[in-house]
């Protein structure tokens, strides 16, 4: 009894479809006679009887798809019957992938495998990619070893990438120390409430803008230690003469504004196609409010006196705290100053307020011993750190600006003329 199989007609053929049977089961057929038409991915063709006999055991009716090698029917002597339907006996001949990997295929039904795979894929999506700070692989490894939270490290590499050197100069925060300070059982200290504070629109914007800043903006930092002895004396006089309670920061705003006039690259913005050098000097002044940071803008600060600046800052700060600031009162700065001196912070770095090219972080003025002409003397000193967008401001440009700033701050008479 001859078997009619689904023949492999091409190199890549694994199955074929029965289009129609030309003969019925039980019909007599002769060698060379067309039995059925099959369809492959390339051609339709007739399969012919290879011997004379009775067509029987049709296992795949018209329309059915059969794997290569499957017995479609038999041709044999009249009455010859197979014990069972041929199809049941046929192993799917063309399963080359499964055959090559029997172990893997044997483990689980294919359906389960695919579910499992999907799960794995989901788990592998790293959480919080969007907010991730750039850091070199080595920096991450070192930070992990030293127990340093990279979120607390300023990156000095391109695009603010935290590199090994940045981690090296960061002191680890003791995690075990935090545990030790936790209240002991039975402590009378009030239990602090844990709660989730939803993001306000403002906090959201601050987060977005500052993250945007530290992400694409290649920051670098320049710190100078300024002598403000004279400036403090002069401030006393100004208050005495005008009655306006100008702060040290108001003097710094004025000094920065004047210095910017001689350094247009610091009073600038980086754009995709060009760098904009701003014609006007508008100084943003960071003001802490209960909801967070706002930066009201002192427009044309280079054209305003210290007392004008003082009055305007006071008014804007008040509006900021009561959330009455209008957009054109906090937009359009060309440079920003952030002062944490009143909190006793000696020195810090600030994140650039885009699209500014730089920000000045002002620390507290304090009396410190300095060497002056070979003598140790006590002077009022103040450290300021400028963060620069390296795409616009190169190191030397920033340093040059700070030299000018120093002249204004250390010879404060210049601020009044």
């Amino acid at each position: 009894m001859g078997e009619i199989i689904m023949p492999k007609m091409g190199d890549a053929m694994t199955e074929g479809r029965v289009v129609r049977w030309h003969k019925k089961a039980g019909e007599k057929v002769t060698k060379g006679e067309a039995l059925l038409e099959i369809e492959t991915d390339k051609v339709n063709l007739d399969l012919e009887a290879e011997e004379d006999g009775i067509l029987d055991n049709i296992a795949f009716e018209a329309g059915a798809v059969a794997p290569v090698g499957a017995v479609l029917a038999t041709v044999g002597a009249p009455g010859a019957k197979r014990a069972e339907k041929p199809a049941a006996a046929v192993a799917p001949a063309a399963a080359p992938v499964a055959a090559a990997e029997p172990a893997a295929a044997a483990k689980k039904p294919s359906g389960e495998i695919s579910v499992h795979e999907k799960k794995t894929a989901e788990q592998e999506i790293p959480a919080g990619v969007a907010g991730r700070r750039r850091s070199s692989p080595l920096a991450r490894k070192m930070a992990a070893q030293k127990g340093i939270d990279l979120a607390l490290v300023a990156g000095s590499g391109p695009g603010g990438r935290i590199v090994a050197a940045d981690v090296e100069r960061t002191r680890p925060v003791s995690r075990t120390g935090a545990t030790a300070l936790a209240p002991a059982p039975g402590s009378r200290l009030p239990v602090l409430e844990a709660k989730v504070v939803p993001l306000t629109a403002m906090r959201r914007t601050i987060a977005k803008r500052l993250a945007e800043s530290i992400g694409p903006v290649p920051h670098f930092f320049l710190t100078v230690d300024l002598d403000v002895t004279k400036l403090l004396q002069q401030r006393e006089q100004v208050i005495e003469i005008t009655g306006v309670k100008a702060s040290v920061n108001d003097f710094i705003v004025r000094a920065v504004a004047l210095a910017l006039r001689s350094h247009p690259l610091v009073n600038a913005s980086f754009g995709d196609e060009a760098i904009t050098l701003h014609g006007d000097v508008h100084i943003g002044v960071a003001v802490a409010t209960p909801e967070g940071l706002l930066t009201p803008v002192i427009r044309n600060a280079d054209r305003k006196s210290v007392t004008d600046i003082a009055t305007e800052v006071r008014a804007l700060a008040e509006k900021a705290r009561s959330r009455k600031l209008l957009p054109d009162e906090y937009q359009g700065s060309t440079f920003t100053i952030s002062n944490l001196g009143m909190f006793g912070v000696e020195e810090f770095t600030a994140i650039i307020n885009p699209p500014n090219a730089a920000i000045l972080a002002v620390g507290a003025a304090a009396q410190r011993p300095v060497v002056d002409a070979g003598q140790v003397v006590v002077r009022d000193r103040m450290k300021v750190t400028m963060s620069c967008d390296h795409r616009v401001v190169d190191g030397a440009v920033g340093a040059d600006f700070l030299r000018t700033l120093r002249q204004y701050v250390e010879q404060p008479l210049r601020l009044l003329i």
Partner: protein
Amino acid sequence: MSELTYRDAIHRALVEEMDRDPNVLIMGEDIGVYEGTFRITAGLLKKYGANRVIDTPIAEAGMVGTAIGMAMLGLRPIVEMMTFNFALVAADQILNHAAKIRYFSGGQVDMPMVIRGPQGAGVQLSAQHSQSFEAFYGHFPGLIVATPATPADAKGMLKSAIRGKDPVIFLENAALYGMKGEVPDDPDAVEPFGVSRVVREGAHVTIVSYSRMLVLSLAAAAKLAEEGIEAEVIDLRTIRPLDLDPVYQSVRKTHRAVVVQEQWKPFGAAGEIAASITETVFDELDAPVERVTGEDVPMPYARNLELLAVPHEEHVIAAVKRALYRD
């Protein structure tokens, strides 16, 4: 030890191996009567006769294919490519035949043959005569790709190539032919394939290179040292097999790597090496692996353009500084 040029080291290797084994023969265009375009084969015809020093027609596929037929029967043919640019004509013979027969025959035959000759940029040879092929051949399993940078390696590695059982693409660099160096006299001093070498130690950055670019890299390293930057320079010596263990070791120390190649950047050897470094010692890196390569254009003829198209010392120095965040 003798002081020999790279050219004479290759010549010496050929003579020693032809003296040692009568199955070694050499064939190529104008290698006999003409004595070779680069005079590597000068004097060989007279010494070994026309059956062992075969002047072929200009027919690279013919040369390589017949060499394959010889190698399978136990001869050790050396095919000289006047320049490797011409070997493209024989690509089917090299890649589809020489590289695969040992494998698809299930190891029934060996393929002891060498295809050698110069490659790389010369002086105003323009687009069709200035190319580098190590990555091209390095892509194909079944081949060995040697890129010697010194006279000693040129001699020792060519001897290994002739004595081996696999087809060797032996890429000389014409610009190195005049370079002098100490070369062992011992006719049995051979250099193995797949063994990279640290040629200069340094703690700050790893420079990976081979062939003529090694010379460039060493010169750059010397200049960097004047600025206090100590570069470790590694000579890969063979592109296939590629021994990157010394590179990984070095990067564990320096945390930054610069790979220098003369050929075009896309899909080049440097890309393969950089990817391997990233795969293997990812957590050791403090900066992206830098690549120094030729410009992505056919070689122009005009000298000033040509000089712009190939890597120079200052490119290596600049790449090192980028890797060190000192640019």
